């Protein structure tokens, strides 16, 4: 091999080191996707072999030298039916199979840990409920079902983690979500796959899957001090929301406690679920859907508030489940929220204490 020039040699070594033909399988989704993939590959090979062997065999057997006289054949309804129905049946199997996977990936189970992702030209901003912010990186614990709630601040982006076989577009104006559960600690590629302008190809990063212990350490070491809900609480005051949403009966705006995920009646008689999308929509286009019994006097905050801040507000409203916390906020303007909140997610704001939201691996199985 000595006659190969050293430069070329170096190249070859380099390539071989970086050569892969199959991505790592690192989520609970991946085996399902791969199974589907191999089934599809199997179908393609079968179909191709079938067609090509017909073509090859016939063109050898009936080439002019061997078969100078063509026999005219009209066609055959039976054959037509066969090759209509069999491919149709095969395709339908894949339709059902694919649909099941799709619904699984895009409908996160309710117990999953929520991480917000904001896409903007040209970076990913990840916000953990505990207030940890990251850019172009995502740290997650292994073995925990995770829901990403994505939104874009400008154009379409797409959050793709090939090793997990999941991706979802972050679109402007609306939340989208995707679910996965990492299975193998490690460092995986993160891409923006929807073309988003000049630096589209630089909108990449890494996903770090950590053992739960490592993850807790990381979390504690990276917290910015205030959880999303706490930030939201502050914003709620700063933006003047609490001027109307006082939580009292004389208030101009409706009471927001315990609002999240309830079904509310609108003034046109329809009902809506107060989910993340609804809360976000209320802040930007308040008069689009007006709850029964109110006049649309709430001002719009469109253009005055970033997607990050919206996420904080939404998190905050989600975390409100009793009057207690609002009372507390009204009384004290300092954000000392060391007091344990009564129930559930509301205690995310509990300062530097480890967040309760991360379910232990045993509990997390969907």
């Amino acid at each position, binding site marked *: 091999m000595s006659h190969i020039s050293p430069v070329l040699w170096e190249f070859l070594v380099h390539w071989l080191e970086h050569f892969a033909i199959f991505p790592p399988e690192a989520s609970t989704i991946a085996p399902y996707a791969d199974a589907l993939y191999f089934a599809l590959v199997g179908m393609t090979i079968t179909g191709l072999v079938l067609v090509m062997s017909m073509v090859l065999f016939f063109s050898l057997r009936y080439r002019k030298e061997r078969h100078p006289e063509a026999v005219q054949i009209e066609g055959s309804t039976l054959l037509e039916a066969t090759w209509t129905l069999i491919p149709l049946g095969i395709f339908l199997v894949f339709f059902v199979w694919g649909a099941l996977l799709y619904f699984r990936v895009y409908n996160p189970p309710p117990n999953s840990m929520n991480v917000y992702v904001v896409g903007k030209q040209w970076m990913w901003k990840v916000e953990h409920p505990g207030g940890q912010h990251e850019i172009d990186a995502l740290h997650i614990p292994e073995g925990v079902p995770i829901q990403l709630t994505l939104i874009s601040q400008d154009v379409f982006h797409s959050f793709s983690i090939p090793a997990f076989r999941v991706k979802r577009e972050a679109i402007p104006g609306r939340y989208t979500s995707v679910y996965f559960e990492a299975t193998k600690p490690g460092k995986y590629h993160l891409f923006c796959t929807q*073309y988003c302008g000049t630096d589209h190809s630089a909108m990449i990063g890494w996903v770090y899957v950590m053992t739960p212990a490592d993850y807790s350490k990381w979390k504690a070491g990276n917290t910015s001090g205030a959880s999303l809900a706490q930030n939201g609480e502050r914003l709620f005051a700063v933006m003047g929301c609490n001027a109307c949403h006082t939580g009292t009966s004389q208030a101009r705006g409706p009471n927001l406690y315990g609002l999240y995920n309830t079904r509310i009646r609108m003034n046109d008689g329809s009902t809506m679920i107060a989910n993340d999308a609804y809360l976000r929509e209320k802040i930007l286009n308040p008069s689009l859907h007006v709850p029964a019994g109110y006049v649309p006097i709430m001002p719009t905050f469109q253009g005055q508030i970033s997607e990050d801040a919206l996420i904080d507000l939404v998190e905050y409203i989600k975390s409100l489940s009793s009057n207690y916390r609002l009372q507390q906020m009204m009384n004290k303007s300092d954000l000392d929220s060391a007091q344990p909140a009564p129930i559930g997610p509301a205690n995310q704001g509990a300062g530097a204490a480890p967040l309760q939201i991360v379910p232990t691996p045993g509990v997390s199985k969907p």
Partner: protein
Amino acid sequence: MSTIVSLPDQSTAKLPSKSYLNQEYGLKSWLLTGDHKRIAMLYLFSITFFFIIGGVLAGLIRLELLTPPADLMATDTYNKVFSMHGIIMVFLFLVPSVPATIGNFLIPLMVGARDLAFPKINLLSWYLYWIGGIFILSAMVLGGVDTGWTFTTPLSTHYVNTHVVTAAMGIFMAGFSSIFTGLNFIVTIHRMRCPGMTWFRLPLFVWGHYATSIIMILGTPVLAITLVLVALERIFNIGVFDPTKGGDPLLFQHLFWFYSHPAVYIMILPGMAVISEVISTFSRKRVFGYTAVAFSSVAIAVFGFLVWEHHMFIMGVSQYSALVFSLMTMLVAVPSAIKIFNWSMTLYKGSITFETPMLYAFGFIGLFTIGGLTGIFLATLGMDIHLTETYFVVAHFHFVMVGGMLMAYMAGIHFWWPKMTGRMYPEAMSKTAAVITFIGFIVTFFPQFILGYLGMPRRYAAYPADFQVLNVFSTAGASILGIGYLLPLLYLPWSLIYGQIAGNNPWQATGLEWQIQSPPLTENFTEIPIMDHEAYDYEWLANKTHHEVQTVG
């Protein structure tokens, strides 16, 4: 029912003294012609021009992707290059490729008419094509467009400051050019068939173009109005497609893909039309299951309108409507399968020869089957999540568009070259080119499937080093492919002067177009023919030898 058809001796063939090529001389006689055959030649010349530009851009793409970082050109430049590559290849090359050249040339001949129904509109559509082309070229020269060929909003409306409006207007014009082509075809096929030419005596080529024309006239206007909205939105800063102003970017996607999905069938049906003719001619047999093949074209055209949302599966469309569209996509794939199987069966008990067009046709069958079946991967909802926006999609559509349509186009050009010019292309050379193209193609685009499953995103100027090996393969393949396309670019013009004289019916094909002189007269038929046999009646042809058609002069 068996037939022996042997190829005629070409050594005695002479060029006719009078033909559409020498009816009149001078630039003006070409630029103001109403003759569909001359317009076809004008188109042939024009789309070749744009194919070279698009091909050179493809070469630049591949060169840039040879190494992981964006070193050959800046990311912005790269973005402009692939956008222009996509726009030119789709709107200025592939959409008009077969219909406007071969279709334009042959449809009147095949239905037994003197010309298309509206010769002036036909000429107009060529001019519109060029106006569109000039708009697009000027967008490119003035600084480019970097939105991709899909013009995704709000990127294209509010976030880039390149020449989106110019390019959009270019596509608008090119779109109307294709609408007029489709209009002409539909009217001609309905209204200009010669006596005895019933629907089921029409060659499958005509059926394929009929289906294509349906899509052209019903789909293209939606693209036109969408682009107008994009342009207005940019100019007046409105927000029908911009969520911060209350609009919905997905509305753009819906309108755009309402055209652009059916448009991919504009880009394949004429190719399939060519393949039907080629396969049947070189196996000396009628196409197996004629009616099934004919109706599957129309079925593709109609069902093609029901599946557009499969380009938006992960963009936040309703999951339920994604179900509907995935199901429809599975249905629309079936007629293509029907065609593939019927062509394969046509070979059965044929008497097959392997002329160049036939080699390209075999290439088509193999590559389109792969391309089409990988379309099923993408139509499968859960799989699309992983594969969409990666090189898998790039590989899929190059397999169907380059491996499918471009192969078919090459097959068609070679097949009808003797009819169009009266001369044969060099046989050995063209077979070499066909084989080179096939090998080059596989080496270029097959690795991209693997890259796609690895997760390499499309439209990336720079990529992680893990992906380099396969990209090097791809670039190497593109060089081979380039040679494969360069060869015909050289030997076809060469054959215009030095090629062997072909005679009227060098392939001994049954089509009406082969029964007249090559190249044909301006008025095609001296007397309108009366059709008394089916399109692929080789018995009729075998018994017809004593009526062998003479050329003029």
